[in-house]
């Protein structure tokens, strides 16, 4: 009943795609383009840059961020390398300045003592002056003693 129609339908088996189209589409599935076509999940590998980047990001999130979040500020300050550097550089300078101050004071004291000890022109060390002063003192004492003695003697005599 439908043989003629079925025969006509089977005649459509001669329809074929263009060879250029077949070749172009087939090339979609070669290894070079398969990466863009293939959406199946790739096996994990640390050497895959995408996974490596994601791994690094997770590492930063899990370790580094909590470290900074929960570390005391003192520790944070001590981690300031600039402050540490300036502190280290200023320490010897301060020590040297203290030493200089001490040496300067000691030097002045020593210089004063030495100059005083070596000064022969000072009045109290002048022998002639001392002698003159001694004579004056003796003279004064002698006059006073003599007067007193005379008075006493006069009273005894009287």
């Amino acid at each position, binding site marked *: 009943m439908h043989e003629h129609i079925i025969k006509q*339908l089977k005649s*459509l088996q*001669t329809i074929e795609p263009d060879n250029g189209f077949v070749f172009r589409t*087939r090339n979609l599935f070669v290894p070079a383009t398969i990466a863009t076509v293939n959406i199946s999940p790739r096996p994990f590998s640390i050497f895959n840059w995408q996974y490596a980047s994601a791994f690094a990001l997770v590492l930063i999130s899990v370790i580094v961020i909590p470290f900074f979040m929960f570390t005391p500020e003192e520790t944070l300050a001590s981690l300031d390398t600039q402050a540490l550097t300036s502190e280290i550089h200023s320490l010897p300078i301060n020590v040297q300045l203290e030493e200089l101050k001490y040496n300067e004071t000691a030097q002045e004291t020593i210089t004063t003592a030495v100059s005083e000890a070596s000064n022969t022109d000072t009045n109290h060390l002048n022998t002639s002056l001392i002698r003159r002063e001694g004579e004056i003192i003796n003279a004064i004492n002698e006059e006073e003693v003599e007067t007193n003695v005379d008075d006493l003697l006069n009273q005894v005599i009287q």
Partner: protein
Amino acid sequence: MRSEEEILVNKAKNSDHAAFQALYDLYVTQIYRFVFLKVGQKQDAEDITQHVFVSAWENMNSYEHRGFPFSSWLYRIASNATVDHFRTHRHTVDIETVPEEYLGNENDEEATIDVALGIETIKVKLKELEPDQQNVLIMKFVEDKSNKEIAEALQKTEGAIRVIQHRALKQLKTLIDARTHN
């Protein structure tokens, strides 16, 4: 499924591009023919056919062998793709206006003018059938698929396929006779 095809499918599921290329070589012609007879335009048929195979490659991991040829799965993808095509492309091109050089190499030397006219007529009238009727007639008589395989591809029972086939042939004969009488 033939054992050789099953091996290719398993390799393709493991991202073996060579295996998938072999499957492509096996089925590209019949999938293109199936799509072309439904959409009636070479460029659309090529685009949809390419989409079918790219989708198949992308979803190989979801393919499960259930005792049917791999082509059943491809036909199902192709059938859905043509439905989407008609949903998004309301305009249609009459297959009669398509230049002969776009229709593949059906014009062999031994083909007579009467046969060529018969082919053109049946292509035109085939497009006037319901989508399911088109699918069944193409797969059954153009691609020589079994009712079981057609049922698997179209997600219907074999009984339903027989009913659709009977009605499709009857409807197609009516359309061709009407054209002949006109």
